[in-house]
């Protein structure tokens, strides 16, 4: 695979753009692999890449039931941040941030990582105190965090509602300057291309329909393209983990819920950062094409339908206009839904399972995109060594039995309230 470079752009320009290679091969399944990763989303592809890159495991297949980039990796709002409060989350997401900072170079693929900064508005003195607590924890972990007062926020994002009639007046904000966005499709394509470059077979339109068992172990998978043997199988199918888990007789603390995202018609540059509303669930950034990309709450009831409900469209629009009255006349271009694995504490599950040879990566709730590189890195380590990577020690399945849940929001065990 020829690397992308200024020279390759020039050379291909001179030959009429006719000699670009495929970014990855259209592989057909072999009889067996050392490792099969089920799910060709960001996490699955990153896992395959790091298995080859970090552990020398190259006889790997990624099985994707649809096409690369067609699942949640292409349906999210692309926000990347590491402003987590709880031990276990804080360090994991910061490790992920560091991988994002080097990703375009590591993959030889421009993922358009833009560290434009993210702020969350505070709407009372108490909320700002809470943000101070969070910022201190971040700084103690070597993560950048700043507390802004009302005037600071006004200088940074003057288009928010600073009027006397604001429904929830802005007191200040917490700001992480290294946070930002990346181009989500490029992340999928970049990992797919880099994994393929290491010899990984990426097999699209290949749905896993069952597991081949041998005693308490799994020795392969049944697919729509036939049986494929495997030394180890890693599941990275967030949204549908329960369905595949059930085929492997795993009972999981997961519910599937739909989360909607929205994009407006293109505007001139307005939103220079990622802005999250501290008084309700709404966050927004502006894409390179000019559309405002935003999201809000879950629809709030179990769903495998990749489409949302009008009630949430209305709620999100209300929150948007309460924070940014200036966008009240902007038209919505599209909205869509993605199916999330929601766990009872809104933290992910990455671990070996009670089934020999089966490893689980799921439960990403609505935080999966920012975790993509660290999730792949740590899951690859877990599969290659059979032991959890230290950064995901807190993400075991047994934490619900032992009471060591990581409930960032303090929302209790109802998955739909997280």
């Amino acid at each position, binding site marked *: 695979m020829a690397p992308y470079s200024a020279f390759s752009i020039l050379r291909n320009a001179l030959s009429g753009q006719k000699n670009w290679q495929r970014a990855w091969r259209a592989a057909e399944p072999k009889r067996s692999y050392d490792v099969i990763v089920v799910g060709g989303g960001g996490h699955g592809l990153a896992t395959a890449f790091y298995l080859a890159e970090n552990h020398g495991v190259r006889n790997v297949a990624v099985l994707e039931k649809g096409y690369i980039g067609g699942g949640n990796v292409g349906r999210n709002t692309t926000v990347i941040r590491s402003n987590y409060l709880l031990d276990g989350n804080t360090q994991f997401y910061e490790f992920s941030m560091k991988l994002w900072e080097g990703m375009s170079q590591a993959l030889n693929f421009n993922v358009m990582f833009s560290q434009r900064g993210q702020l969350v508005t505070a709407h009372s003195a108490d909320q700002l105190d809470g943000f101070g607590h969070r910022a201190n924890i971040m700084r103690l972990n070597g993560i950048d965090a700043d507390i802004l007062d009302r005037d600071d926020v006004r200088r940074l994002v003057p288009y928010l509602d600073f009027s006397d009639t604001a429904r929830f007046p802005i007191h200040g904000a917490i700001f992480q300057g290294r946070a930002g966005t990346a181009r989500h499709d490029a992340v999928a394509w970049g990992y797919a291309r880099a994994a393929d470059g290491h010899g990984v077979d990426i097999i699209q339109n290949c749905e896993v329909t069952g597991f081949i068992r041998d005693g308490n172990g799994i020795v392969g998978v049944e697919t729509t393209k036939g049986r494929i043997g495997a030394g180890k199988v890693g599941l990275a199918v967030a949204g549908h983990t329960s369905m595949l888990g059930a085929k492997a007789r795993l009972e*999981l603390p*997961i519910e599937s819920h739909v989360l909607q995202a929205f994009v407006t018609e293109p505007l001139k540059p307005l939103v220079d950062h990622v802005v999250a509303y501290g008084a309700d669930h709404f966050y927004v950034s502006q894409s390179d094409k000019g559309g405002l990309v935003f999201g809000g709450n879950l629809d709030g009831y179990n769903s495998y339908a990749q489409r949302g*409900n009008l009630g949430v469209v209305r709620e999100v629009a209300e929150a948007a206009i309460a924070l940014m009255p200036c966008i009240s006349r902007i038209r919505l271009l599209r909205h869509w839904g993605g199916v999330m694995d929601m766990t*009872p504490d809104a933290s992910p599950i990455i671990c070996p399972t009670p089934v020999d040879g089966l490893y689980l990566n799921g439960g990403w709730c609505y935080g999966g995109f920012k975790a993509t590189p660290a999730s792949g890195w740590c899951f690859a380590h877990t599969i290659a060594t059979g032991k959890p990577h230290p950064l995901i020690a807190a993400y075991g399945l047994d934490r619900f039995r032992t009471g060591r849940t990581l409930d960032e929001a303090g929302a209790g065990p*109802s998955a739909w309230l997280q």
Partner: protein
Amino acid sequence: MLRFECPCCGPRDHDEFRYGGDASVRRPAHDDPDPEAWYAYVYVRKNPAGLHREFWQHVTGCRQWLVVERDTRTHVISTVTFARASQA
């Protein structure tokens, strides 16, 4: 939007209801000392792609708790009954 056929109030809009989660889980007896039974009740869910029995409360109507059977792929509602009359 979902529309529920409330057995007390008739057809009503989704906005009048609050979700209450999976109605097929069984609460262990109050004095059950087995942590595994409580783990299963609090956390483990079948999470089917298909028919799902779930609780909804008609909060801005009759305030009754209902058990609704709904397809999680299509949102087609097949039955709505009072939760008190429903077997888990």
